[in-house]
């Protein structure tokens, strides 16, 4: 391979070039022969749905993960990037989706970590201050240098991450889903920073699943789907519709045949519901809504805007600091009592919360119902009964392999979800809470799960569906509640929902303003 030095008159080589990157996680082919060229001095977007393999690819480029095959070239030269320090040396910096900051450290200490000058800190500190001051001026990256990171709002924490990368002399900056935790105003500020970086000749790789961001700031965009790179486009020459189709492919599953809902009496009544976290920060701010029998109410929103807390408080796991949750007129006090009121719950994190990974399927089949007289007698588990029930559910819900002795962790994501869903539905809940029902689930299983949810609705049950997949919410829900920053910013009917309007509500722009 020829050295990558540019001769005058020639176009510069790509700042980063990936050739045939392959990565497996067990049986999951997360990256399939990825090719990508990122030109210097551009903002290059990589878009794809959750689980398309974007983060994996970037973690490989940054040396956090090692690829099973393929090559990485930086400025035209092949590089072996096996550890983050290799990437840093090659001029690559990364802002991770979950910040890599030491919370009790000050901003300066965080920036210094790994980029100290010599064994004593004094000189390093002085140099860092001067340099950070310069960076702050050049790129509108103001941060209080002596503040403890733990006390900073997330927007500022993210700037610390960017400063960290720049302080290490990163010419190529990777940002992984940087706006997931930001308010729209913070996101706009971030985009100004990124444009500034590009204008000064740095290269930015922006990973996101949001079309708006791609259209707003990128020069070029590459689309990933199910671990493969499916297209490269000039942003100016493409459209949202084009990209959306590329991202999703031809998804048949989202056309669900469902009849009109026939809502009955309210099953779930939520009144002025407040929840504060341990730091006493309000996570839910006075929610009021109903879910009626025979309807699916969808909750849409950018993740982290209170949806997880909502599910936990409705199922009784979290306690409201104010307000009340009633199911069938009775207040929900804790998960066990909630179940006795007929609350079923398919949690967002099925493998950590909804199942016990090391338990066989049959023991998982009664998780949460272990005190039910059908499964327990005189303090002992009715093993044979439970196993019969488990086998029956596995057959009827098409859980494969149909072995009730297999550990939960041994099933695929889709089959784990079917197992959880079977358990929660077979107890005929009056109200079913469902969180991210199809996250990490293969397409065949998605279709089946959606059908089951609609069938349950048609049997007159109330369903509350929380999903970060807007398409899923729009396809399933009869009414859509949009959440932003712990509040419900608006309600949209499911039938013929206006995506643009939901998008505005998700960004916190309330009805009147919109």
């Amino acid at each position, binding site marked *: 391979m020829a050295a990558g030095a540019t001769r005058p008159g020639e176009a510069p080589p790509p700042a980063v070039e990936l050739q045939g990157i392959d990565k497996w996680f067990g049986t999951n082919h997360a990256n399939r022969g990825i090719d990508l060229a990122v030109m210097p001095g551009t903002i290059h977007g990589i878009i794809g749905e959750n689980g398309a393999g974007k983060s994996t690819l970037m973690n490989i480029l940054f040396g956090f993960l090692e690829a099973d095959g393929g090559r990485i070239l930086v400025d035209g030269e092949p590089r072996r990037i096996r550890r983050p320090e290799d990437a840093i040396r090659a001029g690559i910096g990364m802002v991770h989706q979950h910040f890599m900051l030491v919370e009790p450290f000050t901003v300066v200490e965080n920036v210094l970590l790994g980029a100290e000058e010599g064994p004593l800190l004094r000189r390093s500190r002085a140099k860092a201050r001067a340099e950070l001051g310069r960076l702050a001026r050049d790129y509108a990256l103001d941060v209080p240098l002596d503040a403890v990171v733990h006390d900073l709002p997330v927007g500022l924490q993210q700037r610390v991450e960017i400063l960290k990368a720049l302080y290490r002399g990163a010419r190529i900056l990777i940002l992984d889903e940087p706006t997931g935790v930001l308010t729209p105003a913070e996101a706009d500020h971030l985009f100004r920073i990124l444009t500034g970086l590009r204008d000064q000749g740095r290269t930015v790789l922006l990973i996101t699943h949001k079309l708006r961001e791609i259209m707003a700031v990128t020069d070029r965009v590459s689309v990933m789907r199910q671990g493969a790179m499916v297209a490269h486009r000039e942003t100016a020459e493409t459209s949202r519709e084009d990209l959306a189709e590329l991202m999703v492919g031809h998804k048949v599953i989202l056309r669900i045949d469902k009849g009109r809902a026939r809502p009955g009496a309210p099953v779930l009544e939520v009144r002025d519901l407040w929840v504060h976290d341990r730091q006493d920060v309000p996570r839910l701010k006075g929610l009021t809504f109903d879910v009626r029998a025979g309807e699916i109410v969808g909750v849409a929103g950018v993740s982290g805007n209170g949806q997880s807390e909502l599910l936990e408080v409705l199922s009784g796991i979290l306690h409201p600091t104010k307000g009340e949750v009633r199911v069938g007129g009775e207040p929900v006090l804790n*998960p066990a009592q909630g179940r006795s009121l007929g609350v079923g719950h398919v949690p967002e994190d099925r493998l950590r919360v909804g199942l*016990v990974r090391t338990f066989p399927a049959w023991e998982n089949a009664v998780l949460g119902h272990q005190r039910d007289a059908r499964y327990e007698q005189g303090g002992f588990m009715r093993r044979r009964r439970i196993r019969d029930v488990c086998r029956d559910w596995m057959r009827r819900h098409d859980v494969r392999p149909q072995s009730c002795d297999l550990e939960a962790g041994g099933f695929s994501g889709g089959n784990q979800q079917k197992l959880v869903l079977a358990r929660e539905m077979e107890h005929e809940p009056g109200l079913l809470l469902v969180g991210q029902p199809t996250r990490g689930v293969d397409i065949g299983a998605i279709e089946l799960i959606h059908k089951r949810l609609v069938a349950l609705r048609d049997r007159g049950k109330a369903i509350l569906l929380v999903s970060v997949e807007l398409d899923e919410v729009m396809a399933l829900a009869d009414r859509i509640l949009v959440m932003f920053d712990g509040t419900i910013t608006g309600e949209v009917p499911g039938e013929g929902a206006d995506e643009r309007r939901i998008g505005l509500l998700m960004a916190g722009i309330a009805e009147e303003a919109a």
Partner: protein
Amino acid sequence: MRDALPAWVELGLLPLLNLAFAFLVTGVIVVILGENPLEAVELLVYGAFGYGEAWGYTLFYATNFIFTGLAVALAFHAGLFNIGGEGQAYIGGLGAGLAALAFGGGSPFLVLPLCVLGAALFGAVWGFIPGWLQAKRGSHVVITTIMLNFVAASLMTYLMVNVLIVRGSQIPESAGFGPGADMPGLNGLLNLFGLDVGRSPLNLSLVLALVCCVLVWAFVWKSRPGYEVRVVGQSEPAARYAGIVPGNKVILAMTLSGVLAGLMAVNEVLGAQHRLVLGFSGGYGFVGIAVALMGRSHPFGVVLAALLFGALYQGGSELAFDMPAISRDMVVVIQGLVILFAGALEHMFRPFLTGIFVRRRDAAPAVREAARG
């Protein structure tokens, strides 16, 4: 994710390999001491199983280890590491001893159950405290149980020296218990089977220990509270989801663990010493850690491991007599090595075994691609 090994490798070969390594290192030490390890093993086996009385002592020690091993194992199922078996056994002895001193003159049919109850109750309290502290105050069981071992030792020293000592005596021992508090020996029973355990203190506690094994087994794998304890041990979020209050199960598991450790005193105090003496718990609580790790927290495994350590303790004494270069402390070394290899280094051979027993991953993608079509 870890590649799954076949069950017989996971449950059989891997633990055996770990154990073998512990003994291999022991053998090396024996060689360093200038003795022949094979000869040492021969002497040890004879010392442990060669004649009736040896069997008696081996089983007597094993009884202690079954109790303390079960205690550690039960806590493991709740995701807790109970290092406090030593203190719980010591305090359990106080419970047994106080009951014995108070009612020792009565009929054994009344007194013995009271003494056993005393041991269980006192052990329960010493297990409950760290359990409660973790559940309600968030202090870690590992640290509090370590600290409580020392508190138990100080408390017992105080009581022995100042309160329970026989008036006028210089030896910190309680008065002897009455005959009603003697745990019946097993020699008579065993004679029927042609085994004479001689003057060994083997007593009915062995039967109690075996009963406890069955009870622990039933509790952990058959009962609903045991199920809930295991859920907590595997995943607290799953427990909360399932309507289980994790703290309550932590308290339950630690209390039961304390009961089991406390019952060890029945064997030692009522079966052997027949009075309270300083330091009768003798480190047996710590042996429980090795026993539970080696027995993979299963009562059946605990019995096997306890038998092994019983043999090491008894055979080790005999060995020290015949081979002066190898002192009795060698058993403690083995105990440490077993904890090291069966516990801390339990996964050391896993990659090696995975290489042998699990089909190589490199070959798999092609197969899967083909299957995808």
